[in-house]
């Protein structure tokens, strides 16, 4: 056998399939997407998993491939997804793809029913025999429910028109095993966005990636950096997009990538049902995607006006009905703490007093009258583990989206609760206070806070300082 012409190198986006309002393939949007990625990629992959191939008819698949081929103008190869459960179905799809102008086709392990290794081999063997188009094998156990057995890949690599394997498992022991078994007869491409750098450094010839819809430029830089041996540079790029690729991978692939593209102004519509935002992709994760896109410069940070409360601490509770005079008259404990820098800077203003004092009314009122965007929350260490003395956290900056809410009610709440628990353990909050008093905390968190871990630590420090002022320094 003459050596195969192996040309699958570099970065390939697994294109989403844009839909219009009537759920028809949106040709204009697809052309726009192709133009957006074209310069930064080495080829295109329509009708893959990210392209929602199981939700497309054969006619739609043809249309998508034709549009991509036409818009690409032969500048880059097009590898079309042609997967189905049955062998004869794949043969029809692959012929269809070739007629539509695809340069190769991408075929998953057969799914739903699980054939034996023999059946899997025969599947690809029959397809390769029946079609006149290069074939890329596709290992994606997350959706298929089974791995493409490495021994089967070893044997399939001898077939002339099988040219590559895409491995989306993210399991590098599998990837390296097939690289070793095929001895260079076919290319191995990584299909898991979370492990691109180690996979390419380990011998993959390229990557077919869902996130290459969104930032093909970054992946191209990663690819070149690894090839040039600049591993440090490659790692830093990978780390910069690691959270975003993890989100894409875990929250619905095409669904999540579409959400990102829509935020960037490349309007690709919704995913087809049953997938939906609010289901596989929760609303709070949508907001995380937005922040990550801002971080890598794909969308702009909108300006946000807010300020940290200033002046005497006794003056910071007017909005919940406490005046400095009242605080003084009732001898409430007050304290304040500021900790951290930049986006993770945190301020905590605390007031505490007896349940039977006026503070009881304030507490009950804040609990019963949530102000939209400033909803108070009872502090818990975790669900079913409320902190004592009962503590309400009131955000001072309006919570405009679920992600911001997550930052305040997640790392924010955890930091407050841990600080109180530690203060009880250390005696900074005396035990007799636990049953008799209530705490109200006004928590100021930057609306653009990025780092959950740092925010948690800063809230902890700021709360500890406020507790110390309120309970230790001014102990009465």
């Amino acid at each position, binding site marked *: 056998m003459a050596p195969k012409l192996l040309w699958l190198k570099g970065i390939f986006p697994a294109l989403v399939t844009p839909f219009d309002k009537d759920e028809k393939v949106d040709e204009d949007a697809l052309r726009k997407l192709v133009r957006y990625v074209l310069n930064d990629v080495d080829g295109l992959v329509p009708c893959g998993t990210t392209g929602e191939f199981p939700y497309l008819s054969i006619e739609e698949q043809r249309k998508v491939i034709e549009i991509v081929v036409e818009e690409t103008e032969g500048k880059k190869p097009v590898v079309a997804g042609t997967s189905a459960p049955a062998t004869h179905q794949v043969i029809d799809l692959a012929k269809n793809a070739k007629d539509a102008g695809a340069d190769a086709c991408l075929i998953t392990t057969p799914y739903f029913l699980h054939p034996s290794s023999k059946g899997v081999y025969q599947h690809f063997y029959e397809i390769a025999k029946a079609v006149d188009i290069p074939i890329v094998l596709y290992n994606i156990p997350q959706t298929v429910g089974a791995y493409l057995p490495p021994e089967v890949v070893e044997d399939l690599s001898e077939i002339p028109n099988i040219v590559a394997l895409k491995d989306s498992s993210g399991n590098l022991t599998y990837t390296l095993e097939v690289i070793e078994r095929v001895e260079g007869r076919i290319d191995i491409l990584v299909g898991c966005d979370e492990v691109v750098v180690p996979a390419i450094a380990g011998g993959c010839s390229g990557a077919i990636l869902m996130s290459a819809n969104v930032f093909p430029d970054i992946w191209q830089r990663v690819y070149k950096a690894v090839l040039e041996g600049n591993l440090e540079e490659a790692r830093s790029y990978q780390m910069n997009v690691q959270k975003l690729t993890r989100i894409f991978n875990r929250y619905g692939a095409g669904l999540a990538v579409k959400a990102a593209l829509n935020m960037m102004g490349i309007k690709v519509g919704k995913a087809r049902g049953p997938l939906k935002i*609010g289901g596989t992709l929760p609303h709070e994760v949508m907001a995380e995607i937005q922040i990550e896109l801002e971080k890598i410069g794909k969308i702009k940070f909108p300006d946000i006006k807010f300020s940290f409360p200033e002046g005497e601490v006794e003056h910071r509770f007017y909005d919940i009905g406490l005046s400095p005079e009242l605080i003084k008259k009732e001898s409430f404990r007050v304290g304040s703490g500021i900790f951290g820098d930049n986006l993770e800077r945190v301020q905590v203003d605390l007031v505490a007093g007896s*349940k039977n004092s006026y503070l009881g009314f304030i507490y009950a009122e804040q609990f*019963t009258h*949530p102000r939209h965007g400033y*909803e108070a929350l009872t502090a*818990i260490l975790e*669900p079913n583990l409320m902190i*004592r003395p009962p503590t309400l956290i009131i955000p001072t900056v309006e919570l405009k989206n679920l992600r911001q809410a997550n930052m305040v009610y*997640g790392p924010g709440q955890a930091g407050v609760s841990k600080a109180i628990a530690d203060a*009880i353990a250390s005696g900074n909050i005396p035990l007799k206070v636990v049953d008799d008093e209530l705490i109200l905390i006004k928590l100021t968190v930057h609306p653009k806070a990025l780092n959950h871990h740092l925010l948690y630590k800063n809230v902890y420090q700021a709360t500890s300082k406020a507790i110390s002022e309120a309970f230790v320094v001014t102990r009465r």
Partner: protein
Amino acid sequence: MSKKPEWLKGIIPAIITPFTEDNRINEEVYRELIRYLLPNVDGIVTCGTTGEFIYLSNKEKINLLRITIDEVKDKVPVIFGTACPSTKETLELTYQAMELGATAALVAAPYFIKPSFNELYDHFEILNKVGLPLILYNIPQCAGVHFKWWTAEGIAKLENVVGIKDTSGDIPFMEALFEKVKDEVAILVGHDEVVVAAIAAGADGAILSSANVIPDIWREIYHAVKNKDLDRAQSLQTKIQKMVRIIARNGATQAVKEALHMMGFNVGNSRLPVMKGGVFRREDYEEVRSQLEELGKIPRKDVIFDLGNGKKIVSKYPAVPETPDVVNNFTIRTGEAFSGPPLSEVAHTDLIMGLRGGPVDEAIEKALKRPDSKSKPRIISHRPKIMLVPTVTIRTSKQESQVFKYAAEGIIAAVDDSIKMGVFPEQILDDIVIVVNVFVHPGASIRQRVKLNNYKAMRAAIRKAIESRPTIDEIIREKEAYRHPFRYAP
């Protein structure tokens, strides 16, 4: 040839190992528990999985065996768990068991490093030489090895192997055992959730973790099946299924211990790394407690509700050891509880209760005067007066019905059952008002789950508000290990 012994059948608890505060075996409580169990059981398994054999030294295991034999006094067989990672160690422990007078050894597959099936067979062939009757123990959930039926069949042919305990819950596996070796060895089910099915299909008995808690009910179920009264057996199993599912799936050891603790047995906790509020979650605690209350297993005591306005009420309260004798300071009491699954339909209820005319009541009256909106808090009950406050701003009518119809129905049902149980005494209905903050995820779909989860969470929140839980001790014990679900980046 049948080696099936006459004594290996019926209901056999896998007894827990009680520990003292400083983590030593609590012999006194252990003996007390054996005495509680004996009238209703056909044997005792000591040092099984529920007995935390894996956290015990061989010396401690031997000590437990001695105590068990002494306390049981030949009334029922004593079966002793001897599984260790290596053949040598298992062999030594099995010899010791025979010398001390154990009736049989229960032997799980060697764990951590997983042997092949021919090595497993060899392992049992070596143990077979001891001469003590052996029970093969299939527990893939923990040992990591699921015996193939042909391996189990081969081992069952060894002369001293008298039984197989299958904890996998894999009924097709058990059916294969019936087909191959039913006449030769006893087959016992070890998975609490499938007892009726397994016994009806031909199992000789059951070795169960939950039989520590409800040996009497299991005995009734066993006899109902054997007497061909399947309707009775099924209805009994259904009645306890929820509790049994929680125990079997959420850390049998700690779960059983907490259930026994609720009933008044001072059995302590599991050894680390199993911890309170860990694999047996706090929501499981509340759910098991509700189940035990309904089964009448939690003793009642007189609890005084001192409202502080001169009114004092005595309630026959289903009390755990932590329940206070007097509940007072009703200005503001707080209770919080969470219940799942699944993700979208979780319930998080957060309540304050107080006296009519007090700060909580005043907050309710003020809230009623606010301008109308979809999210405006509503009164969902007048006796007691309960105001429901949605935690998430309501934007759609679907959300509105999830909160004010389905969640509200669950909350009212929880209050009704708390009244029925004496946790929230009838006599204080006119004195106490409640504000409950209800979190329903905007993505919630399954209405039935929204209702049930809110029911469960509200029932727990009321109990916690009355009992001032979590206690400071609980907070301090868990303050390092706590896992806040939203603290981390996705």
